[in-house]
């Protein structure tokens, strides 16, 4: 029997309401008990993980990641993406279907799951396509996808422009209890835009993307959610207007949930100044006002989830003229540290932050084991909230380097990640 004891940490679990100095005993990959240090049994066979001065939380979940495999292995592989997740403190990730081939069928889902098992680090739940080939025409085979193991469907990267198709996706998805994740964008409004439309785009002479491109689609999808009474999750919320609409929808009791990403609460369109293609992302970085609304919405729970929208790109896609460069930035290894800055700034409690990064995504995805409870697999993250470091992409486990946060001084990061009792990342030992 393999035992380990996580000793002396402050255990915070929003699911069970635990918050205190507790020891966690793990046997054969499962949590056996969570108890006061005085009563915990230290057995000769136990390996001890000293967590004193650290925070122990349920394993963090990033429900919006692009792993790029199959098809774009030069940007990221399932193996490197999973390792990057482990280093960022995540025990579970969801990968988006815009690979090549697209994950709109069982064989691609099987392939991803097989590669993730071989990588043997974090848990991977694939997201299938809403529409076959992400073409926005016909529905993908949700029954087959669900049976193969997808937890949600999304055309992420592309909006579903046809409202009738979106309606049918929400309705048909209900039959399989599949969550629909919507990338809200009206392509006609985006047109040839490459950054947020506003003062900065005017100054830089770059074609702008108005915030309404997102907000009008959020409004449409909320109306369709009301029509179909299906579960709708809105991806990467970036505008004040979207926040307002989501708040109203929630007040009406609609089954709407939402996520945002660290870049929307940490940066504004100003980051594009100097034509930095690492700051090119869709939806684009917005204004101070949007950023403040996103922060507020995270604090008050209007936005349920922080996800990274980890989008690896190589220099082939990024060392180009700004309008030619690909959208997206990596985020798995900066997501938690950037989120902890919100706690540091007093905007959100540590407990609520952990809810946004672990418990809420687990509930939205209908995962079976949630929180630190006896009997659950030992998926947990140990965080050192005092650890200071400078963001250096060369230390990342991701294959890609496209981050606008290089050089930023941050405080707080994951120091140990455990999945099913197995240590997949240990900052001190750097085993992996």
């Amino acid at each position: 029997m393999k035992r380990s004891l996580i000793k002396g940490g402050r255990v915070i679990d929003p699911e069970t309401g635990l918050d205190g100095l507790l020891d966690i005993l793990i046997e054969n990959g499962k949590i056996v008990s969570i108890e006061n240090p005085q009563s915990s049994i230290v057995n000769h066979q136990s390996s001890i993980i000293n967590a004193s001065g650290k925070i122990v939380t349920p394993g963090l979940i990033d429900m919006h990641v692009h792993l790029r495999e199959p098809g774009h292995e030069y940007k990221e592989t399932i193996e490197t993406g999973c390792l990057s997740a482990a280093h960022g403190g995540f025990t579970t990730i969801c990968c988006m279907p815009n690979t090549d081939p697209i994950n709109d069928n069982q064989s691609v889902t099987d392939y991803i799951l097989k590669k993730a098992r071989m990588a043997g680090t974090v848990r991977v739940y694939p997201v299938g396509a809403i529409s076959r080939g992400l073409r926005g025409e016909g529905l993908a085979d949700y029954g087959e996808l669900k049976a193969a193991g997808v937890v949600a469907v999304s055309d992420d990267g592309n909006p579903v422009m046809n409202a009738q198709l979106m309606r049918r996706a929400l309705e048909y998805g209900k039959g399989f209890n599949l969550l629909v994740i919507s990338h809200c964008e009206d392509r006609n409004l985006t047109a040839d835009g490459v950054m947020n439309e506003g003062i900065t785009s005017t100054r830089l002479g770059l074609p702008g993307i108005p915030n309404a491109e997102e907000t009008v689609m959020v409004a449409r999808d909320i109306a369709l959610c009301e029509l179909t009474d299906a579960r709708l999750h809105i991806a990467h919320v970036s505008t004040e207007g979207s926040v307002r609409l989501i708040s109203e929808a929630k007040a009406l009791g609609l089954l709407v949930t939402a996520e945002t990403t660290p870049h929307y609460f940490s940066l504004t369109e100003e980051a594009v100044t100097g034509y930095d293609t690492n700051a090119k992302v869709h939806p684009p970085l917005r204004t101070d006002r949007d950023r403040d609304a996103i922060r507020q919405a995270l604090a008050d729970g209007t936005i349920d989830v922080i996800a990274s929208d980890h989008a690896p790109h190589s220099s082939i896609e990024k060392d180009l003229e700004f309008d030619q460069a690909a959208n997206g930035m990596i985020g798995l290894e900066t997501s938690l540290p950037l989120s902890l800055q919100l706690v540091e700034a007093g905007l959100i409690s540590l407990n609520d932050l952990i809810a946004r990064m672990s418990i809420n995504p687990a509930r939205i995805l209908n995962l079976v084991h949630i929180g630190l409870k006896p009997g659950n697999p030992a998926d947990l993250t140990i965080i050192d909230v005092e650890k200071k470091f400078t963001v250096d992409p060369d230390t990342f486990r991701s294959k890609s380097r496209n981050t606008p946060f290089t050089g930023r001084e941050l405080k707080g990061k994951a120091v140990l990640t455990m999945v099913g009792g197995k240590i997949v990342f240990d900052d001190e030992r750097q085993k992996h």
Partner: protein
Amino acid sequence: MRLAEKDILDIESLSVERIKNILDTAEGLKEISTRPIKKVPTLRGKTIIHFFYEPSTRTRTSFEIAAKRLSADTVSISASTSSIAKGETLVDTAKNLEAMNPDAIVIRHRAAGAPHMLARLVRASVINAGDGMHAHPSQALLDMMTVREKKGRLAGLKIAIIGDITHSRVARSNIVGFVKMGAEVILAGPPTMIPMGVETLGARVGYHVQEAIKDADVIMVLRIQKERQQALVFPSEREYAQCYGLTEEKLAGVKEDVLIMHPGPINRGVEIAPEVAEGPYSVILEQVTNGVAIRMALFYLLLGGAR
């Protein structure tokens, strides 16, 4: 005396003193172009590459003539006849050009920010000859030179810019430049052609042409691109000409000594009526003449003398 700057990328990064210095230098060099032998040896042995990713007659010819009148060696590359057509990236092209040790690279590019990218990659001086909708600093400088020549000053003048501000790099550079030099800039055009937040550059926005030009000292007319109709920016050329085109009727009541300018190429009968383009107020061809002087000044200040 050389400029402290390595590159000329936009007007924003030039100080008032620097702009005055460039205009003064251009005025001094203008005379060379009127000599029977239009050549001085100042930049002998310097190599200037003209790199035009976008079509251009005026700007390209103007830069080339300016370089030749200062005795620099010039090489000209266009997108269609270069490795760009074979899929070479700007970064790779830049590295290859750099390896041939040019002293200056003049670049015209479809993408805003491309000259900035090039400037970071090469030791040579980079002059932006127009990047996307962003900037066209030599055009703004030649416009300021033309106005200063005619009016004796820039401060306190009222400059009306009419047309598609959103898609115009000329408008952006002129707004920034004229505001910097103390002039008042008022914009007019269809609201679909006025970019969001343009007031933050220091310009005032009005939609009505006649109101904007009423007591203007300078009226700058911008080219209307036919392709913009597809972007739903305006309904038709006919409608544009009627509502926003500069016609003799609209000019009734303007200042007697008003200057009418256009960066070219003009669409006769669309944004400007032929009689107006050729009329007494027009300084359109003087702009072109001054363009050579401004570009000579830029080359001279970037490459001439000791740093």
